[in-house]
Structures are given as structure tokens and as C-alpha cells.
């Protein structure tokens, strides 16, 4: 199955199963990418896991992206799923507002989601509902903020000897 056929196949299945929950799809370089509603992400993963034809049973990775300028959809979480038998790969994304950072956990479907979600919680403060042990993983427990958010600049903000116009982002 080539990626274009995969895109239409997954899209029609998701539309039939979830209706309004499916938002959009596109080809992103070599990955078919789907956007779904945040609240159904665990159901989508479970559906794709159990579907006999698609059977995406391998969670490759997960990452949170922070878009502070994107009003109402400041956060995105992307999941990459892989069907090892047929070598199909897709990416699923959810978008949500920074005022409500609750996301259903994928741990009931994938054991691997456990630490991946703890990492996203640690760095972005995303609350994964249903996670068995949601606490910081790489940073120290006493830390009071989530450092990968864009509002935390990497350099010390009090320094004046570095000019961001020339050397920074």
C-alpha cells in the first residue's frame, strides 16, 4: 500500500467510526498525517490497534509541540504509529488550548506510552488523564515549571552581553 492509498484508507475508516471526531488529513512529506479531536485520541489509538486491516500496534514515538501564537490551540501532541507487518506508518495529531491541558492517556493501549507521557508532562505540563504514575521523569521533582514551553528562554534573561538579533532565534 503506498502512502496515498494509506491516507485515504485510514481517513475513510476514521470518518466512519468517529464522524465529527475526525478533523483533517494531509500528506506531510512521507507521512500521512491525521488530526483528530483531543478527547477521542485513546479511542482512535485503540480502534487502529484492533482494526484487522490496519492494526497499528507499535507506538513509535510521541512529541508535544508548543505554538504560543496559535490562539486557542497552543499545544499539539503528535503520535507516530507503525504497522510492523505491512510497514505502514502514520502520524496522528491533536490540538488543544493551554487553558485545558488534559489529554486522555494511551497507557491502556501501549505500555510504551508510560514514560513517553511522563516525559511530555515533565517538559510541557500536559496532564495525561488515566496515566498510572504521572510524575516528572528527567527533571528533579522539586522543579516548579515545565521547561520546554516557549516562554522559557534558554539563555538567562538578565544577561545583556548577548544580542538576540544577531545570534539568537
Amino acid at each position: 500500500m503506498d502512502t496515498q492509498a494509506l491516507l485515504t484508507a485510514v481517513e475513510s475508516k476514521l470518518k466512519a467510526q468517529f464522524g465529527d471526531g475526525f478533523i483533517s488529513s494531509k500528506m506531510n512529506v512521507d507521512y500521512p498525517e491525521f488530526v483528530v479531536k483531543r478527547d477521542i485520541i485513546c479511542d482512535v489509538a485503540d480502534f487502529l490497534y484492533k482494526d484487522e486491516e490496519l492494526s497499528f500496534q507499535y507506538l513509535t514515538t510521541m512529541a508535544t509541540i508548543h505554538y504560543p501564537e496559535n490562539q486557542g490551540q497552543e499545544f499539539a501532541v503528535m503520535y507516530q504509529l507503525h504497522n510492523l507487518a505491512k510497514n505502514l506508518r502514520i502520524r496522528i495529531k491533536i490540538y488543544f488550548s493551554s487553558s485545558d491541558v488534559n489529554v486522555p492517556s494511551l497507557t491502556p493501549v501501549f505500555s510504551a506510552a508510560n514514560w513517553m507521557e511522563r516525559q511530555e508532562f515533565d517538559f510541557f505540563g500536559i496532564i495525561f488523564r488515566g496515566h498510572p504514575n504521572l510524575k516528572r521523569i528527567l527533571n528533579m521533582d522539586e522543579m516548579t515549571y515545565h521547561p520546554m514551553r516557549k516562554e522559557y528562554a534558554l539563555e538567562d534573561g538578565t544577561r545583556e552581553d548577548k544580542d538576540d538579533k544577531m545570534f539568537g532565534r
Partner: protein
Amino acid sequence: MSAKNKIEKIKTENNSLSLGEGRGEVEEYSTLNLGPTHPATHGIFQNVLKMDGEIIMDSEPTIGYIHRAFEKLAERRPYYQITPITDRLNYCSSPINNMGWHMTVEKLMGIEIPKRVQYMRVIIMELARISDHVVCNSVIGVDTGAMTGFLYIFQMRERIYDIYEELCGARLTTNIGRIGGLERDFSPKAWDLLDKFLVDFPPALKEFENLLMRNRIFMDRTINCGPISAERALNYSFSGPNLRAAGVDYDVRVMNPYCSYEEFDFIIPVGTQGDTYDRFMVRQQEIWESVKIIHQAIAKIKKEPAGVFHADVPEFFLPPKEEVYNNMEALIYHFKIVMGETEIPKGEVYHAVEGGNGELGYFLISDGGRTPYRLHMRRPCFIYYQAYAEMIKGGMLSDAILTMSSMNVIAGELDA
């Protein structure tokens, strides 16, 4: 077998062993801190173990002791300055990490790499795989009490590092290659070292194998030690030798070929039990396959036009220094690359390579700025180490040490 059954089995079978307080009517557990700097863990890991005598009932791993915020650092560095960061992920096979990063950026920018450069990269990556697996396997030997093999085979790893040194000037954190190719062609001395290595390495590896592979003590010690089933391994998103030892033939080099790996003839070794012995054997076999691939790559390079070591992309590949001083155009390109004035396309790419430990993936988002908007690294160690607690449950403490070394958990990659 569930952990509880396993514990019962050990208790009934090993009557002669001292199994601690828990054998009586009253359950009594002791807490043991394994780490953070226990020498047998080969890195900084902490495991708080709940022990029943010598049997592990439960464990709580703590990681992050050498966390260096690579993903955050990458958001402030131009693309070519991120390569040294990737060195420090799995530092036993830095060149694979470097190449994976270069290929991710090349995918974003749509750069076509000449065949000769791809084969040269294959040679470097397979050398790195050999050195990675050699370290892991010989350390399994050390943890079972066999120091000799480790000392013998480390001379060979030293020879690989000599080749790195000739290629890029560094040994451990290599920073090898550039976006768009390699920084320089292989020198005659590098070819010479490589040829000599390929002559000397197989007998040395054979000698190492003779010491351990069919050694009764080693087999008794490692077979059935820290096993994991294929189903659990897949659910935990294992990849690399650890997944293949459980019996799943997933190798990124074959399934999603990069760097012309589809042209090479090699097999994917798989195990059946997913235990320490299988992991050892899979790595051992992969070393032989890597040697095969290097031979094929050398033969292929000879058919390609000589002297090509980078793609023709002056916007991304630094010009030679003498041209910068003597040629206006080269000076402009040099300035633009170093100051980050190069036009970078917007986009999101994911590129994965088969690292020493499994699928090493880079998820890169570019917003057209001089640095990545977001870089996420899929680090195989981080993902499979979470299964460690499940794998050692119901086993002996000494098996837990062996399980960790056979999983090849590298602190740099785990904590990023």
C-alpha cells in the same frame, strides 16, 4: 510465566538457597538501593528494589541523572551546531547518531547525496555498530565474571577509534560528517587502517566467541535471564537487537532503507526467547553482518568516481578554507552558513536510522528560522528501559545486573 509463578518456582526449586525472610508465613521485604552509581550498572541509574531475600519483588527506576536538555538546547542552535549534541546520545556509536541527524536535515532540505558518500557513510555507521555491540557483549561477559574477553576485544574497538580519528580527528564524540556529505575524503591512511582492521578483526571476534558463546558457565548464567516475550516487547515499543532477540525481525535498515541499504546483502538475526543469551547472540551475529556490509561497501565505492565526498550544495556545505580566503563567492557562502543566513525550508520531517540500540528517530520542525522550532529525538534506550522493572521482577538480584548490561542501556541516550 507470570512474576508470581516465577517466584514460586524459584522458591520450590532452590531449596538450598537462602531466600530470606519471605519464606515463612510472614511476608517481610527489605528495600535495596541499587545505584545511582553502582559500578555494575555502567552508568548513573537508580533502582529502588523491594527484595524478598535475593528475589526482586518490585522495583522503581529513577532516571535523569545526566539529563542535559538536548531538545531545548537544539532550539537555539543552528543546524550544523546540533551535530555535536547528537554525539552525546549513545556515545558508544556516535557516528550513527551524527549520520541520522545529517540525513534528517537533508530530508528537510531535499538534498540528494552522491552514491559514493552514501557508501562511505555506510562504512562509518557499520564500524560504529561493531564498536557498540562489541562494548555491550564484552560487558555482558564482565558482568558474568569473564574479564578476559573484554580485554581482548577492546583492542579491536581501539582500532575502530583509530579509524575515526583518521576520518574526523576525534575518537569518542566524533562529530563526523557534515550536512550534505562528509567533511573530507577518506585519506589513504584511513583506507589502510580499515583494510588492516578487516583482516585482523574476524579472528579476534572468533576468539572472543570461542571464549563465551558455547561456554557452559556463560550459557547457564545467561539463558532464561531477564526474558521478555515478543508481544510485551512490541507493546513496550522495543527496537533494535533487544526486539530482534525476542523474535521480531524489525530492522530500520531493511524496512525503511536509508543511505542505499537496500543494495546491500545481509540478514537480520533474530532470537526466540528474548533473554540475555539471545540478546548476546543477536548482537554477535550482527557484528558479522556489519563486517559483511563493510566489505560490500568498499567494493561498491571502487566503482564510483573517486574524490566525491559531499553533495553539490554550496548553501549548506562549508567551502574549503583556502577558497574562503581567495574566492569571493566561497567567502559569501561561508559567511551565510556560519551566520545562519541560509534559507531553510519550512516543514516537518521524521527520519529514523538503525542505531546501536534500535530505531533512533529525529522529529524536526522547521519554521524557516536559523534553528529548529522543535526537535524531538526518539531515543530507543529511553523507550525500552521502562520495561526493565517488568523484566527483572521475580528474578534474582544478580540477574537484574546482567539484564541491564545486556539491554545496553546507555545513560547518555536514556537521559538526553
